[in-house]
């Protein structure tokens, strides 16, 4: 648990640093993403289904991981960690790689929810670098959109600002949350 806290503290520190030195996504990539941005119809519906399925699956992974953590099943956690890394590499990160899903009004909430749920799994897997990257990404992508509603923790609807606060409370409770939170929160 202590190691989890430490790495997450690092992650948040990294996020803070990331804010200061953030290099925006190259303009051409954003434009390309917008060109391919589906505004509706079956394509959007498909994307919505895929993201929803991914979010639900991550929640199931989380539940499985929680179960193994409760039983101190270290061997199982090692196997699961390898699987989840692969799942993130091959599927989740590709799914969320484009900029438009985090800006589309019908998908942004899902997009953010997937990221938060993945952060939770990674935090419990004691995976500092991946969690750090995701936290950085959330803060940058959703800058100024703290009121966006997300599912975090699973089954509960809160706004993005609150979700970040909850992540902090859950995994950084020994640090000074107010000071860091004020510094890290996306601008409204």
């Amino acid at each position, binding site marked *: 648990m202590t190691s989890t806290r430490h790495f997450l503290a690092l992650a948040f520190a990294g996020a803070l640093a990331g804010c200061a030195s953030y290099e925006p996504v190259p303009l051409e990539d954003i434009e390309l993403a917008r060109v391919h941005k589906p505004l509706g119809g*079956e394509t959007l519906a*498909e994307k919505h*289904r*895929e993201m929803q*399925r991914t979010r*639900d*699956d991550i929640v*199931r*992974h989380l*539940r*499985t991981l*929680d*179960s*193994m953590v*409760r*039983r*101190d*099943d270290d*061997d*199982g956690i090692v*196997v*699961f960690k*390898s*699987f989840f890394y*692969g*799942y993130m590499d*091959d*599927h989740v990160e590709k799914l969320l790689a484009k900029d438009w899903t985090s800006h589309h009004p019908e998908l942004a909430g899902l997009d953010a929810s997937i990221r938060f749920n993945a952060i939770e799994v990674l935090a419990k897997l004691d995976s500092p670098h991946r969690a750090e990257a995701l936290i950085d990404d959330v803060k940058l992508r959703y800058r100024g959109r703290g009121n966006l509603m997300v599912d975090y923790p699973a089954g509960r609807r809160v706004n993005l600002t609150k979700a970040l606060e909850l992540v902090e409370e859950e995994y950084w409770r020994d640090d000074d949350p107010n000071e860091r939170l004020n510094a890290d929160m996306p601008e409204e």
Partner: protein
Amino acid sequence: MLLGRVRIAVVGAALAALSFAQIASAEGNAWDGYLDYAYVYSSADSAALKARIEQYGKEAGVPLDRYITEQFESVAASDEQGPDDELRIRRQAIGYLLLYLANADADQLEKSVDAIDELSEQLGRSENHYWYHYIHAHEALELGREHDFVGYVLDLWQKVVVPLEEPYQTMQALSLHDSPAAGFAASLPYLYENVARLILLRSQELGIDSGLDPLGSVIRMLADGRVGGHPDVIPASASSKEYLSRILDRLDGAESDAGSLTFTLALFEAAKHHDTARGKLASEGLGDATVKALQVASASYQVALDRADTVQGEAAVHTRTLRLLGEIYAAKQRLGVDPEINTTFTIEDAIDVYNRMAEAGSEGWGELGYTQKPEYVLAMRTLWEEIQESSLNIADYYLAKSQELPHKADEHARNAARLYTRYLQLFLYYATNEGKEGVPDSAYFAAHEAARGVGDSYLVYAKRPTIEEVDLAIRQYRAALKIFPFDRQIWPGITAALQRQGRESEYLSLVRPAAEGAVRSRALARWIGSNEPESTRLKTLVGAFSDSLVLVYLGYAEGKGIDELEAGLAKLKVQRDEVKSRLMGLQSQLAGGSQTAPPASMGDDGEVVGKVGSGEKLDAAQLAQLNREIMETSALLERLDTQIEARRRTLPLYKSTLETDGLSGDLRTRRDHPIHALLRRMYHEHADVDVTEAAYEE
């Protein structure tokens, strides 16, 4: 039944494969098509698969093993593989796998692994990837390497299933998902089925009972509309959907071990063995095959217990093993046979688990493995019910044995009393305001049964109870009466016990508190006032309890018929009329004597004799005698009137209580009977219930 349906599904799916195969093999041997579409039927159970392969062999004109030899084994692999080689190698690997699955021939699996390994550098193609991991997963199972098995299945999911999901959905949206041109994406519903069966059925057939927990994710994903979610391809009712959802219910429910799939599958397997044993018990009695099946079930439960990491898991196992134990003793009693059946589970072990659950309490229940408090409470109550039922069943068995073997009556009666007493000790410890949350409603009636059982053990079944045992029996009867005063059979039991000790005079003082408790009970009054279930019956009994004479009837009149009691009342009335008539004569004599002549004396038949009406005067002695007789007759008449009035009032009440018979039987057979909740309220309403004192002053 469920497995049977899964088998049907596979046969149905195989028929679908046939049409695919015919298309695929239009220009070659039919086996090419059957092997290319083997994902449709490969996870059938071995008997069905064997039959299917034989049928395909007939249709293709060559059996599979010969086809493999002729087509693949004779072909020397070239240095560089071309597209045809890839297809040939894959078919070869699949062919060996099918032979392995159909005939349990491990050599074939080895050949299959060797073949598919040739494609290890060509896994970019989903089909290759699928068979590579699927075959290796089987190899891992065969070798008992659970971690390898888990790794292959997770890889299969991540590398094959997940990438196919979106294309399949797209094709489904365009109604192209069942087209042969859709490629391997069309296989997705079958892949779901195959993965489900690999984890749920095959792993258990090969005895994998550890390390499966990371696959919990896959099971949860499969259960969420993936298996059974494509009824146009595999009918939902014929897929493993129901089986899967039952596993998931266990995995995430109160009977889990903090979500462990390994444990859930082990417990599920044990429950299947338990069902088999039950079936044999019903059809064959307690014969050798049944005893063996019961021992297999017990051993399977032991495996599940060994896999339990949490108290939650232990509780789930003990709940089921106690049911098994209770069934064994009930069968022994019912069938009158007593074979030796070795089980490693005891009621004491279950009580130990219950104690640990109770100790955790509101603060620590989460550490036991439960994720929700209601599940924790439900698990405690369920375990309790099994403890109570097995205690009562086994005690019943010993009572039956005491009758069957008179020379051992005392020994068996005391065994029964010990079991009842142990349950009562548990009850008294936890049926308090602090501990009652984990105590089910039915526990209160069970406590009544146990207390009464102690009484019966010593007073009905034991041949030579000690004075202390008789005394304890009486106190236990009284305790039983306090918990459940509506059992008519217990009243005469108390009188019989008192008679045995020559203490009949204590009857009313012993039973009245229980009767008054019922009469004064606010919970009972509210129950009757609200016209809750059994109100009429209870109202009758409460009315009867308020009359001490009815209590006497309840204790002493049980052996007599109501006709006999009514005849006694009629006789009393005749006697009263005679006495009244005699009194009137005496009074008339006195009046005549003072004015004319007093009666001299009365004959044996009460007829006035003397000189009544003769005008003779009575002397002082005669007058005093007449007055004394009048006084005595008046007193007798008054006594008779009182008796008649009492009987006239109480007999209908007592008669009405006879009609309340059967409530005990109803409660005994129905744990969910609403009266159980009433008994709970009544028990806790009287904090001063001296069941403890009554039951355990030893």
